[in-house]
């Protein structure tokens, strides 16, 4: 069942996996020559920024507690490295006006290629997400390192100006390994 002219598809919160997200986004622009926008709205808790903040806050609380116990003054939070800062940047890309295709800038090409292959291997190994009951589903966080997590958090270039979210689904579905056409 196809509706041809859906221009906006929205996923409300990251409560599904990347397969399901792709099925849903795929409902857009089914008519020939059409374009559409697909938007995933994520809660703060599932962003790297919030995770990093949370880690800093936790460290501060811990430091305060220690202060109270020992009576010493310490500065906390500075040496902390958040999980987010260790994330590989997959979206190392050159700028495309239409934002539809991704290519790698030559200086980072080798590093980026290695990182991408690491992620690809990682996605292949992951066990298939099993459907959980509605109750279980409600309060789950996006798993760090999952394809969905990468789609949300890892596809952005360092300067945050270039956005190439296509890289994660490309690796996950191995679209770069597919033939352009298939003659039967």
């Amino acid at each position: 069942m196809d509706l041809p002219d859906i221009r906006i598809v929205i996923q409300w919160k990251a409560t599904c996996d990347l397969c399901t997200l792709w099925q849903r986004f795929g409902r857009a622009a089914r008519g020939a020559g059409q374009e559409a926008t697909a938007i995933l709205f994520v809660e703060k808790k599932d962003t790297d920024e919030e995770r990093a903040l949370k880690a800093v806050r936790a460290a501060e609380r811990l430091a305060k507690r220690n202060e109270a116990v020992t009576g010493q003054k310490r500065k906390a939070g500075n040496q902390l490295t958040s999980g987010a800062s260790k994330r590989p940047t997959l979206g190392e890309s050159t700028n495309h006006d239409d934002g539809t295709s991704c290519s790698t800038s030559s200086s980072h090409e080798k590093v980026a290629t290695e990182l991408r292959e690491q992620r690809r291997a990682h996605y292949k190994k992951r066990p298939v997400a099993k459907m959980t009951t509605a109750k279980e589903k409600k309060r789950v966080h996006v798993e760090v390192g999952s394809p969905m997590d990468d789609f949300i958090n890892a596809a952005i270039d360092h300067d945050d100006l270039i956005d190439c979210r296509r890289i994660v689904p490309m690796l996950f579905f191995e679209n770069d390994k597919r033939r352009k056409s298939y003659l039967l």
Partner: protein
Amino acid sequence: MENLWKKTSVTKRLLNFIFDEGHCISQWGAFRKEYQHLGSLRYLIPEHVPFYVPSATLPPMVLRDIAEVLHLRPDLTEYIMRSNDRPEIRLVVRTLTFTAKSFQDLAFLIPDNFEEGDPPPDKFLIFFDDRKEAERACKYLRARLPPNLRDKIRWFHSVITDKTRQDNVEAMRTGEIWGFCCTDSFGMVISCNDLKFTSNLP
């Protein structure tokens, strides 16, 4: 059910077995216990009847899972793989700026102070993994419209009848409905009029 596949009168009329939206065999494996038993079909029906497993979303791990569940014969399996990239769809990720409960991040779909006679907004689908949430979001969006236009936005989930589903889909096709707040059941409308022999697995 098993007896059905042993009847030659049935099996000789089988051309092929199609598991449409094949990714469900894997993803719903834990949910629909019956899918785990699909594999025995391979031994019940004549060997020359092929299985087809079409889907737009079969990453390697899912494909492996399906091959196992269906007992696909490695030497007799042909993989026809195409890219599922949709370059015509812009991909956007946005962090919620308001509370999720308020649904205010969806306000952009219906311009402020919308009046009758204004050009209709772009057709939209909003997916939720919770029926109640879909309904609440729908009510929020409806409240942004003048009362006589509020039925332009509907919710769509498994607790509505097949008839209503078909009607809803038709109404969106004609532009009478502008948008749905839906769950995955949005896709589950069967629209074949000329099937001669079908078997719907429970």
